[in-house]
């Protein structure tokens, strides 16, 4: 019979199916990329850096668990900033107490975002040394590593300011080295690592930015100056600040320029207008700019305007202006801060602060903070707010997010770090001169060495850096947070204690550290 034929057929089928099994089960992803594929060429490292920059830019977005920018805990509650209206800020940062605890979502989100950035930076720093990578030059490699190290230091700056002692990790995480025994390293240790990173960045980075939105040497020097202030080393702080100031690529904006040069305005505000922000758009003052673009992939978005602008359109007969955009006033500037400006100071002028708004009919409605000094009430829709983040979209006036370029770090702040460093060394004359350089361009009055004090410097920082600076870090650095917030912020004054100078370590960080007890910050309950 045909037995032979059948057996042959059967054998054939079995061989057919069994022939290629080992290769058959190998995975070749076609739609995704792995670390081993990416970090092999300078382009791959550039892609890694792009993600790091995008991480930094997330500072000014909302994280889902909170109204307004995720970085508000670095700014308020403080002498200058508080909640605008009932419910606009999570009570964890208004009334504190049991509202701020180790399970507060905002706190753990902040922590995870910063360490995610650190791991991405560690990956770049470590893999750059892989001999397989084909660097064109040492300079190319040092520039890449310098950027990664600077952003790593930037993340640790947030961490030590918010939590104090934090675990220091400088290595890429991998699936085979998961740790359950982290320890909190003393602030001093972390600051040493930051110093080392920033010094390397200072070496590796170019004198001037090559592409807008990227880092240059001056940013490293700026952060070094601040770090040395934190480390009680005003002498080195002054040196680094001075080095950035002396860089011929940077100078304060003292003249009108750019897209609105022909319209009424002040030089101080020109650097905030979209089209003027980037260094190659004539902005000599910006050390670090955050670029945004509505219609481009990677364009990002921010909620600065929404966070800081009062809801003017709630007023009768006031529509959302396409130029100004729509405010949601999550945060407000305290009356104390608003009252710090001399009448002639450009920084407090109608161009810098919404001193009035126009109705649809063209009538002028003046804004005022009067009567709110001790008030816990809702900021009425005619309360002043900053114009730094005005950002409307004529195509879509109601839009939530903002898409205009923004300065992130300005030379003016470097001057103020220099002021602080000189003052701490007893050089009040030098401090006064540096202060006057900043004040002069905004038509504020000249001051003398006798006027210089820590409190005056703190006031000046509000005047210059309103809504920009990480106010709490500044106040904590000079140990004035508790005192000044109690004095000038009636919302939170009754509630804040020593405890709130640091945030609680997120519970998830403590719970996952199975093999070692990770101590909680004082005053917060923990297991």
């Amino acid at each position, binding site marked *: 019979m045909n037995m032979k034929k059948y057996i042959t057929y059967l054998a054939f089928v079995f061989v057919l199916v069994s022939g290629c099994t080992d290769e058959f089960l190998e995975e070749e992803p076609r739609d995704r990329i792995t*670390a081993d594929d990416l970090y092999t060429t300078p382009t791959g490292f550039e892609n890694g850096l792009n993600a790091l920059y995008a991480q930094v830019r997330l500072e000014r977005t909302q994280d889902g668990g909170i109204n307004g920018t995720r970085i508000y805990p670095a700014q308020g509650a403080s002498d200058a900033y508080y909640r605008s*209206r009932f419910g606009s800020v999570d009570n964890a940062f208004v009334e504190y107490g049991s509202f701020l605890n180790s399970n507060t979502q905002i706190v753990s989100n902040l922590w995870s975002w910063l360490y995610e950035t650190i791991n991405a930076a560690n990956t770049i720093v470590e893999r750059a040394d892989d001999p397989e990578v084909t660097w064109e030059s040492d300079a190319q490699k040092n520039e890449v590593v310098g950027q990664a190290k600077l952003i790593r230091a930037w993340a640790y700056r947030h961490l030590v300011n918010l939590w104090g002692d934090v675990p220091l990790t400088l290595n890429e995480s991998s699936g085979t080295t*998961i740790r359950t025994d982290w320890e909190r390293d003393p602030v001093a240790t972390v600051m040493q690592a930051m110093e080392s990173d920033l010094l390397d960045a200072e070496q590796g980075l170019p004198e001037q930015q090559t592409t807008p939105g990227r880092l240059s040497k001056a940013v490293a020097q700026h952060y070094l100056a601040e770090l040395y202030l934190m480390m009680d080393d005003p002498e080195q702080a002054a040196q680094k600040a001075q080095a950035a100031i002396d860089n011929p690529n940077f100078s304060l904006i003292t003249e009108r320029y750019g897209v609105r040069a022909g319209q009424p305005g002040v030089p101080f505000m020109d650097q905030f207008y979209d089209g003027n922000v980037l260094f190659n758009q004539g902005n000599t003052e910006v050390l670090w700019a955050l670029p*945004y673009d509505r*219609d481009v992939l990677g364009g*990002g978005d921010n909620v600065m305007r929404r966070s800081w602008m009062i809801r003017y359109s709630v007023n009768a007969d006031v529509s959302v202006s396409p130029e100004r955009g729509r405010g949601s006033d999550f945060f407000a500037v305290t009356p104390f801060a608003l009252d710090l400006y001399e009448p002639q100071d450009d920084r407090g002028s109608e161009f810098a602060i919404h001193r009035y708004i126009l109705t649809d009919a063209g009538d002028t409605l003046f804004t005022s903070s009067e009567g709110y000094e001790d008030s816990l009430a*809702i900021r009425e829709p005619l309360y002043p707010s900053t114009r730094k983040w005005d950002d409307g979209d004529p195509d879509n006036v109601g839009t939530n997010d903002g898409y205009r370029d923004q300065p992130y770090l300005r030379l003016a702040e470097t001057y103020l770090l220099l002021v602080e460093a000189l003052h701490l060394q007893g050089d009040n004359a030098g401090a006064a001169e540096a202060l006057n350089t900043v004040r002069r361009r905004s038509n504020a009055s000249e001051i003398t060495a006798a006027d210089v004090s820590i409190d005056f410097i703190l006031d000046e920082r509000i005047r210059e850096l309103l809504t920009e600076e990480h106010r709490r870090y500044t106040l904590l650095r000079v140990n004035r947070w508790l005192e000044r917030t109690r004095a000038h912020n009636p919302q939170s004054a009754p509630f804040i204690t020593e405890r709130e100078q640091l945030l609680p370590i*997120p519970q998830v960080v403590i*719970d996952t550290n199975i093999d070692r007890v990770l101590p909680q910050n004082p005053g917060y309950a923990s297991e």
Partner: protein
Amino acid sequence: MKTTTQRYSNFLLLCFLTLLPTAVIAQSEIQGQITDMSTEETLPGVNILVKGTTIGTVTDVEGNYRLSVPEDAETLVISSVGYTSEEIAIDNQTIINLALSPDIQSLQEIVVVGYGTQKKEDLTGSVISVDSEVLNEQQGPKVNVFQALQGVVPGLNISQSGNNAAQSGVNITIRGRNSIKAGNNPLIVLDGVPYSGGLNEIEQSDVQSIEILKDASAAAIYGARGANGVILVTTKKSKPGEPKISYNGSFGVQRIANLPPVLNGEEYWDFATERVGEDVVNQFPTLVENREQGNSTDWVDLGTQDGRQQKHTLSVGGGGDRFRYYLSGTYTDVRGIAVGDDFQQIIARANLSLDITDWLTLSTNTQYTHQDLSGLSADFGGFNGTYFANPLTNAYDENGELTVTPWPEEPLFANPLSNLLVQDEDINQRLFSNNSLTINFPFIEGLSYRLNTGITYLTGNQGQFYGSNTLEGFTNGGQAFTSNTSSTDWIVENILTYQKVFGKHSLNFTGLYSAQNITREQRNLLSQRFPSELLTWYQAGLAEVINPSSSYSEQQYVSQMGRINYNYDSKYLLTLTARRDGYSGFGEDKKYGVFPSLALGWNASQEAFLSDVSWLDLLKLRFSVGRNGNQAIDPYETLARLELQNYLGGDNAGTTAPGFLPATLSTPTLGWETSNTLNAGFDFGILAGRVQGAIDGYYTRTSDLLLDRAISPIHGITSVTQNIGETENRGIELYLNTNSIQRENFVWNTTFSFSHNQNKITKLYGDGQDDVANGWFIGRSIDANYALVYDGVWQTGEDNSLQPDAEPGDVKVKDVDEDGVIDANEDRTFIGQQNPRYTAGLVNTFTYKNVSLSFSLFSQQGVTRVNSLWDTDVVFLDARRNTIDLNWWGEDNPTNAYPANRNNTNPFDVRFYQDASFVRLRDITLAYRLPERLLQPIGFSQVRIFGNIRNALTFTDWEGLDPELDAQRALPLDRAFIVGLSLGF
């Protein structure tokens, strides 16, 4: 019962096997006709076999046969599925007619098992078979056939997690959960091929039977995919005969079964002003105006409607000597109870079988589905859902159009109904074709080979356009989205079967070698900002913003399996299986797993010492032990991956700078979860078929659990998947079928099922520590609730030293550890579990003459869940969102039920856990069958009219939308009233 002759394991073969006429010198011819003893109808397709040889034939359409037999032939074996086999001595007769008696003992059934069939009598595993009569006659018509199984099969838990028109929110688990993170859904095998399509694409009236393989032995032949149990769905095959045409049609309406008390405009105003003060509410002109004018918008009502469902199935089946066919077409049309939620489906099926030669059979089971899921429904549970939407805002503008922003001062709130304005087209087409070639080797008796090839091809096309009348469209200048999905799934199985009977020994071997590939590709395109809206999603080229994305995945499987069934005299049964599975998604160092099993059975009632016990029909003891896997690892999951995090570059920072951020850690040793299961049970039948049942107990230990272990965020990545942890799962199941009354005109039949299942975590990370962050606790159920306990409300004047900040009206937290301090961590404790401890089902069918009444009860007990409707502080701090009517605490209402109506009464975020147990009268079906004397004049063979009520009544203490649903701010369940008609020609 008498001994039955051997049957071939393959159902198809059994029915249609013809054997090669062998050249024999001396022959005689026998002919005759086979009929059904009870109906006296002739029987086609009956096997006639000369005992001890391979000589045989099957009866033709008229029930006639003609067979040449050797001179020395002594006995004919006559057998047919569903009938008791007979052996007839030839004794030189040339005409042998026989009336076969229907096999009333269900124990004689042939049951589909993996890669073949088995006599139920010879089963060693825990397998439950549900036939088409139970599916179609006791239960009403279902959009999703598995809804008809809720409470019918012990150990099979069917639950409804949502109620869309397509009924895609049906969850199936067998014997509870073993896995914590991995899927717990059973493997579904349709006509022998693993099925990954939608459950609603399996048409109820096409189904011949559904078999549920529960224990390790039954499921182990599916190896790395068998740990959650296996469901085998077999569609109808025809027997040779005249074409039988039948029609099944139904029409029904659906009404909302239950709604929570959502506040209307006036109630909302009172609620909001009491909560945050009139000043806050007064700042919103829209609210003030609508309140003054007495307007109120009932958003839930606007988002819902009376639903409608209709379903029509037309089928024809028949065949001749060598060819059988079953063709059917079904049209389903559902208008859901959510406005805009429509579902239409066309299913066409062709089951064909052709005997090319006596030893070669070609067959196909092919189904084509066309599914139309177009249209979006209103938003119920989301940020802009109907439950949260403020009743003092405007659904419609002065022109009667839906508003874009119902609340102009608060434009972040979109209209919950705005989805109705979205143009949405969503069409899926699936071709599922299973083709097999069977060779019965004529030269070795009992040896057959089957080449089984399955191919599934899916294509899905979606187009969506948000015009300027929606918030998305308005803010983005028009938004279009298109998505094209295609997936191809092929499987090739080589199945070799050998069957041999020698004396009282019976041996059956099945071997398998198979390979499978599943490739899926998707392309999406999101585009925004168009010059006009006319071209909807056909204008991506004109868009200012274009954001395409694509994805690809490929999964490969290679498997070998061997099974030996042995029995001695049908008394002592043994099954041994082993399967080796390879899967591409496993980590680099762990590609293959081996899964063995052993099962023993003892048909005690066939022993001599029990043969005198007249009331005992059947007693069978079963025992099995085996290992299964749960392979639930997605493709590429074990590789370290990066995610996109783009930035801007270029001279003016205006072009995309692609960025990649580390997103996962690599896991080269990641593999399957291993479940070792022990099952012991017995089947019994007493009182001449009056009572039949089965009791099973099982114990499963699952190790290598795939867990997303929360790792310290300090790693920059917050979790990693590992094979860690172990669970135990044990349970007991009872199945009972009684014919309590069986008279000529009246029959009362009851099916009762009961399952108890309890899982617990026995190991997590190997260090004895609980994982508080993930909510996993050693020694506790996987679904244990662990939280702070609500302990009432702080009353005026009460000593509040436990919570010194608390004011009267605030939530009181129970001081679980009794240390005098409330701590957000230390005072957490266990509050029941989310999976039922017991489920039970009861189906009663009463038949009086031609009228029958069935009702199905289903109950789950021992479930505790959060009632999210009662969550505090979800209305925003200025009370902009709506809520439900709650028993707020007040000075004049010193209740402990719910805190005061103000913000921040619950600083510890205590949630409300409630008992979600229920008893549901799930299905009532009243049917009338036209009597024979009325049928004949009109030429029908069957006419059945029925009415059905689905979800008739629910008894529960749950104070929310429905205890079965997960989300409580969601589309409610419906109560359906259905009428239908079945015709047979």
